[in-house]
């Protein structure tokens, strides 16, 4: 299959890669950009482990082709911390034991980042509704909600 040259702008850095048109964005991030923090849990858009932010929108990177992201601005879990300074969501996930195996964690972090940036004052019900779009098999979810809620307060205070 003929390959196509594309440029992905991920976490502030340009990646010039050559991919088959059928390659998913998730695979391109993992295989061609060596950004393996984005995980694949189902490859059919249900579990949300591969959630990233594309031009400000949270998307499931297993449901996009890499060529569709050509020239666009992407954010993945690797870009959340500023150097050694963790993002409030990352600190809150540790503090509230919101992860066990950590496989779904990048997806939840990016989902929550997208939500809180769009709507810092989101109501509890709505937040729970949005967080219910990703799957976790270890934690039972409650600590994830606590962590996101705690991070939201901290992010608001820092504004």
């Amino acid at each position, binding site marked *: 299959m003929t390959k196509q040259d594309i440029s992905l702008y991920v976490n502030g850095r340009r990646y010039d890669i050559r991919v088959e048109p059928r390659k998913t964005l998730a695979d391109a991030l993992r295989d061609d950009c060596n950004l393996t923090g984005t995980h694949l849990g189902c490859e059919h858009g249900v579990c949300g482990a591969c959630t990233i932010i594309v031009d400000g929108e949270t998307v499931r990177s297993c449901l996009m082709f890499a060529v569709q992201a050509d020239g666009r601005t992407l954010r993945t879990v*690797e870009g959340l911390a500023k150097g050694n300074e963790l993002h409030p969501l990352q600190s809150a996930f540790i503090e509230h034991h919101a992860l066990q*195996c950590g496989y779904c964690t990048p997806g939840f972090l990016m989902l929550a980042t997208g939500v809180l940036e769009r709507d810092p004052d989101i109501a509890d019900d709505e937040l729970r509704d949005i967080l219910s779009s990703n799957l976790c098999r270890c934690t039972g*979810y409650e600590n994830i909600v606590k962590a996101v809620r705690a991070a939201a307060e901290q992010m608001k205070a820092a504004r």
Partner: protein
Amino acid sequence: MTRDNNLIGQSLTRIEDLPLVTGKGRFVGDMSFPHQLHMRIVRSSHAHARILSISVEAALALPGVRAVWTAQDIPEIGPIDFREGKIEKLEPYRQPVLARDMLRYVGEPVAAVFATDAYIAEDAADLVTIEVEELPVIIAADATPGEFAPGLSTEAAIVTQGFGDVESAFASAHAVVELDLSVGRHSGVPLETRGAIGRYDTARDVLELHGAAKVPHKNRESLARLFGRSTAALHLFEVHVGGGFGVRGEIYPEDILVLAAALRFEGAVKWIEDRREHLIATNHSRQQRHKIRAAVDAEGTLLAIDNEFWHDQGAYPRTHAMRVAETTCGILPGPYHLGAYKATGHYRLTNKTPAATYRAPGRYETNFIRERLLDAIAERLEISRVDVRRRNLIRSDEMPYARPLSVLEDDVSYDSGDYEGLLDKSLALIGWDDLQRELAERRAKGECVGAGLALFVEKSGLGPSDGAKVNVDTTGEIEVITGGASVGQGFETVMAQVCAQALGSDYRRVRVVHGQTNRIEYGIGAHASRATVMTANAVHAAATKVREKALAVAAELLQSDPAALDIVNGEVIQRDREGGPSISLGQIAHHLRPSSPTRRGSDPGLSAEGWFDTAHQTYPYGNQIAVVRIDRETGAVIVERYVIAYDIGRAINPMLVRGQILGGFVQGLGGALYEEFLYDERGEPLCVTFADYLLPTLSEVPPVDVIIAEDAPSTRNPLGIKGAGESGIAAVGAAIASAIDDALGHPGAITSLPVTPQRLKRIIDGLKSGSIPR
């Protein structure tokens, strides 16, 4: 022991979290080796068929394809062994790594494609064609058995356990209660699918398996036998594991294939399972039907239980052989006295994905069965559901309490417990009596609401032995080398806490090694809630030795009595001389270098090995209470509130224990209400995506109150620990069923799990129309 360093019992944050929240985790899919090949499995699309021919030419012709294997390409590789050794009667039923003549389930590996790229391997796999003659399928374990192979029945074994005179107990009973109950087929379904990389290091003649989990050391022994290699020439390496739950880390055909291919191609071969494959190829679990009878006296005392059950093993026995069925027999009586008991389990093969253990194997099932039975006895004798349990509970003054049963080849002997005391705590927390009134009022107003409860005894910490090594380097950093395994449960943090407590150090200065067979010769792994019990006690033993050595050396250097010394913040100090001379653990390690002139006869190194041995398992216990509301129109069950009480003996890190309980609970909720592997009449699996195999999401999770009790420390290990991993899930099906019955006002309405909306709607309609008798 130490004044300022009481780490055991503290809810400390985890040392494993930082890489996992920053995207720096390393799961097997994140690993690659230069020039690796990618493997794709061609799987059976028939539930039962004879193979006539397999055509691989088109696949081989695809550019980038290195090889396509069928069974005849690997004649040297035998079927997959049982982990705990040879079991004569099951030998002929073992699964071949690639199907030889017969296909026995949809998803069975038939051929393996090796290519330079994962996409090409998948393309090529689509080009492999298999011609078959279809055969009749067996889908239900309680149907008439058929033939697995000529002369071999699909009833591969019958397991039995029991004691006492069951017959005369039934003959003299005041009443006999009979139930026919079923538990559905569901499984662990971790968020990370399986994966494995086989690598052959030609320079050192070492075969490596990356992506190991759960039981790397035991698997190394099995694989060394299978490949005819010394264990020194075969190593397993665990990286991050995205959830285990019993299914991950067993030896599957794919693990053997990547190793065989690594040897054959003298390089690295990577395989990553996709989700559809996972749902049809990774171990299923749970499915059983029980016909259970109880003989009781007029007070509801259990005189005898007679239970016959059918265990749906799927197409082949797997590494666990008959363990789930055997555990089912041994653990069924739970927390109750029982005069006589007989359990007969039909271990049957069907044309479905093979089954094995899933978190709380044999307990999720039997807690549902037994607690349904207790509810039925309460109903029959018109006593309350709480009282019938109180009357039968084993009392704390009877501990240790032995029964002539066995679980995991270990004679059952409950070590400690106050079952009724813990029940009282839960009833008080939820305000059981007020709750009954409140629910009655709501029902009177037309709502369909109810509460249910279930009691259970867990088992954990099966030995017999585990060891660990502790080493302090000259910077004072501590390395703990274990043969344990991490499936995400917080293993590193727990070991670090135990080690740092003994050594008077910061737990964040402890590095914990696990799942690396080249670092330690033996290891018990992480299964059946034994990591903390076994490995933490071994770490405690090793760290205590290191402490003693450090104090002995420091006493000499400080010219003091070891008994007058303590270790605080990694510094050996004199207890009664604040500000006096001290020496750090790193400095002591420096004095103990092999070339150190101040070593003076001590063995080199500030290090030690410790072992923990135990004769029996420990038996934690608990209870769960559910409050549910039912939507009569849709059959949906909304869990409004949940209580889980669990006595863990001693919690090393209560936050992690609570995490285990909550996570287990939500998995249990899945098995109770949503998750089920369904098949059509031709053996075609119907649940092959997350759109039809439904994991609980946040929306389904109610508020949960957790009581972590430490009333009954284990008497079988120095730290008093019992396991935590399987407590949350153990009785969810049981408690929810009881609550649904209560809401419907129809005790005994729920006879099978999961209680899906479709099933519950049928029950509601049946009760309304009278087709289900009131």
